[in-house]
């Protein structure tokens, strides 16, 4: 049961082969069995079983939707009413959210069963899930390796079949990179497609929630439930949500794929390059034509990102001050002491590093040189994508420069860690959608292919991914020991 797709499970639930309660219990058992992965921060067993019961009622009375009764899990960045929402931080270890994020509300309304809250890098700042206050998550493909981050718990849980699918968020690659490193499908939608209300902000102009699933077909179902305009999020966009599943089987004849030379140069593991070439060959077989393109400003993405994201985060994280909720230091002697110790003790090293970088970049005398300059670069990068997507339908490239690295390997070297997002960050700066699908292995570890589309072209990306997944079986592979 745990290896089935959403559509298959929906069939089984309707055919009476299994109830949602049974399915939920089976996944809860798997979560317990594989606790060593450290994928969950909180397991909401009681609530999950209640939701499953309610789902069974809906299944029986004919009001069920596709996701009704399907066990999923939420990244711990989404506020969940009455449930601890830690964002991977000691700062919020005691925070019980008093409201549901819009995404949570929508998935609840669809009848999905939430198994719990997934581990993540602290405040989504990290590429390996090692900055979590709750400890590193292990990659199910090799437990000595990282699952990627920041949605590392989501990727590991889906890969290990501890949940059918999961929510993730992506600010600079936090859905796509862990999806690639764990061999699953992950979609970062267009900025503004999915509401950010109730999703704890890291870098507001870049953050975007999205689905993490086995297949493009599942991602289409999940995105259908998550997407849509939300009056509570001024940056969500009021454009109609198409039927993401309707066009999955459209043929790809005539599709033009652009391959930016900047994506395939120095720094890319040759084994990954070779795997990607095979995947692109499949697309040729499907009728697509391939074109070499150039996006000259891509190389500026990392420095621009590491000004903009920290600048925004330095303000976004100011509310964690020990005054109203969250961690408060013991026996503060005065206000300054309350602030400095609460924040000093409540935040981890990487979070503090980014707050400091951002504060510096926004400071009087530096603002023009850093923040304003980075915004200019952001516009150049956006223009690169617009130009490229005027020339080709989609852009393809690697998700990561290497496969999953060892736990502890890059923690001492933040720059090297930052470089692991070199192929994903530019997409967030431009705001376009992109997804990662598993396309093979390099030294037995999964390799992801990134497919980047135009604004609001999620349906097209899912169609392109689905067509590949009809020809191949990488997305159905289960890591050893999790079958």
């Amino acid at each position, binding site marked *: 049961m745990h290896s089935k797709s959403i559509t298959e499970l929906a069939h089984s639930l309707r055919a009476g082969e299994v109830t949602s309660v049974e399915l939920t219990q089976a996944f809860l058992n798997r979560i317990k069995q594989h606790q060593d992965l450290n994928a969950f921060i909180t397991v909401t067993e009681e609530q999950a079983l209640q939701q499953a019961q309610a789902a069974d009622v809906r299944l029986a009375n004919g009001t069920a939707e596709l996701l009704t009764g399907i066990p999923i899990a939420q990244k711990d960045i989404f506020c969940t009413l009455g449930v601890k929402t830690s964002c991977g931080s000691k700062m919020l270890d005691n925070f019980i959210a008093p409201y549901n994020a819009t995404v949570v509300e929508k998935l609840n309304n669809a009848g999905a069963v939430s198994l719990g809250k997934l581990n993540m890098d602290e405040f989504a700042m990290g590429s390996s899930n090692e900055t979590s206050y709750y400890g590193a998550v292990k990659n199910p493909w090799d437990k000595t390796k990282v699952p990627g981050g920041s949605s590392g718990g989501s990727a590991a849980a889906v890969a290990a079949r501890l949940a059918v699918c999961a929510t993730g968020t992506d600010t600079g690659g936090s859905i796509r990179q862990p999806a690639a490193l764990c061999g699953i499908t992950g979609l970062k939608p267009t900025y503004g497609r999915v509401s950010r209300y109730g999703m704890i902000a890291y*870098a507001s102009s870049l953050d975007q929630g999205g689905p993490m699933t086995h297949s493009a077909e599942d991602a289409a179902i999940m995105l259908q439930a998550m997407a849509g305009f939300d009056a509570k999020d001024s940056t969500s966009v009021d454009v109609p949500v198409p039927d993401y599943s309707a066009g999955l089987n459209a043929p790809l004849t005539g599709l033009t794929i652009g391959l930016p030379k900047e994506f395939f140069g120095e720094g890319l593991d040759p084994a990954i390059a070779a795997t990607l070439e095979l995947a692109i060959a499949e697309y040729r077989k499907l009728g697509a034509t391939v074109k070499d393109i150039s996006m000259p400003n891509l190389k500026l993405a990392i420095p621009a990102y590491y000004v903009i994201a920290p600048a925004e985060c330095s303000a976004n994280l*100011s509310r964690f001050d020990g005054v*109203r909720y969250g961690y408060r230091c013991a026996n503060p002697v005065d206000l300054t002491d309350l602030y400095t110790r609460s924040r000093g003790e409540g935040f981890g090293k990487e979070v503090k590093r980014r707050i400091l970088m951002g504060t510096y970049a926004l400071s009087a005398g530096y603002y023009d040189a850093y923040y304003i300059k980075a915004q200019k670069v952001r516009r150049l990068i956006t223009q690169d994508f617009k130009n490229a997507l005027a020339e080709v339908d989609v852009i393809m490239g690697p998700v990561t420069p290497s496969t999953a690295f060892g736990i502890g390997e890059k923690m001492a070297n933040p720059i090297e860690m930052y470089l692991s997002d070199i192929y994903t960050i530019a997409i967030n700066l431009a705001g376009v959608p992109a997804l990662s699908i598993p396309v093979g292995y390099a030294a037995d570890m999964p390799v992801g292919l990134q497919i980047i589309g135009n604004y609001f072209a999620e349906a097209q990306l899912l169609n392109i991914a689905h067509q590949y997944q009809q020809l191949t079986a990488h997305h159905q592979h289960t890591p050893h020991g999790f079958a």
Partner: protein
Amino acid sequence: MEWETVIGLEIHTQLATQSKIFSGAATAYGAEPNTQACAVDLGLPGVLPVLNQEAVRMAVIFGMAIEAHIAPYSVFARKNYFYPDLPKGYQISQMDLPIVGKGHLDIDVDGVSKRIGVTRAHLEEDAGKSLHENFHGLSGIDLNRAGTPLLEIVSEPDMRSAKEAVAYMRKLHELVRYLGICDGNMQEGSFRCDANVSVRPKGQVAFGTRAEIKNINSFKFVEKAINHEIERQIELIESGGKVVQETRLYDSVKDETRSMRSKEEANDYRYFPDPDLLPVIISDEFKAHIKAELPELPDAKKQRFKDSFKLDDESAGILTSSRQLADYFEAVLAASGSEPRLCANWITGELSAALNKAGLEITDSPIDAQRLAGLLVRISDNTISGKIGKQVFEALWQSTASADDIIAEQGLKQITDTGAIEAIIDKIIADNLGQVEQYRSGKDKVFGFFVGQVMKEMQGKANPAEVNKMLKEKLQG
């Protein structure tokens, strides 16, 4: 040395919206602490601001009223600082691209008109309040006020005296209430002022170093605080010292300003555009729509009162000092059909005095425009004299009866029956032959005595013109 003062004001007006600028919580004043603060106002993790369009509308109305440039594209920015009553650790404000640009306001000081430039006006959210009493060594935070919409109106350094500053502040206070965008309640902090004050030797072009005086919450205190600050700065410079750029707090009890923080201690607010909010786009259509809805402004109304109703400057000024008072005047005028100056005199005289005494606003007047008009009709048509009118006014104030009912009930109708008046005059002349003698020998002043006696005898109800005419004839013999 002769000194010149330079003053610029920053005025925070609380916009009279029903809900907060970025959340749906109510803005009403005086509720139990933290009962009007929702998840957004509390700055909970994950919440997002949504701009209240009504606040935008009000800002544009203001901008149009001061003939300012309305920015077609304005941007909210985060102003970063830590304070317990600032839940997000930043205030959402506007920095580089405010919604209202350069405009102006004309003030009148000692009969001289002066144009004061308005540099800009921007939208922002208010912070909460820290409460330091009754918390046993801790501080309490009340976030009811957090997120209340403010329009910060920044003037050019165009004022040259505390008097001018007060005139500007009053003019602005009058205007925002006219526009219905602020209740103007200074006790509740709906209209607050910071003053930037500097002095320079007369004739010098460059500005002196300025001090900013924070949070002065009454017209009286503005004048006192500025005058005090001018004196302090002049004394300081004349005794060889130097004014330092700093923020000072006015202590109304001690009537002095004291240093709060120097420029060096000032925060670096690290402003940057708020990524949670879209830029505010104001279209020409929207502006045209607002313009069409703009009420008649105080200056225009005053001029119209002078031109159309031949009112003097002072009366026109008083009557147009609030939209409600002006409306009341026009309602009385329309209902009574009386001479405008008669209406003006009764409103600025009797009625205003009575309202002041009772501490009431015109909107709470026990005598509505219809009832006052009823009184003025009877004065105009000589049913009663002006003097009896005051008696009727008293009765109107105390009851809900109409002027006509009161006149009938109390028998106040003026006597114009010449026979009745003649009989009384004859009696008074017969009783006061000594005074008649005096009058006839040229002591004109005695005439007033006779008028008084006749009116007294007739309980004030005689038509004064008739009495005068007949008395004159009789006395001349």
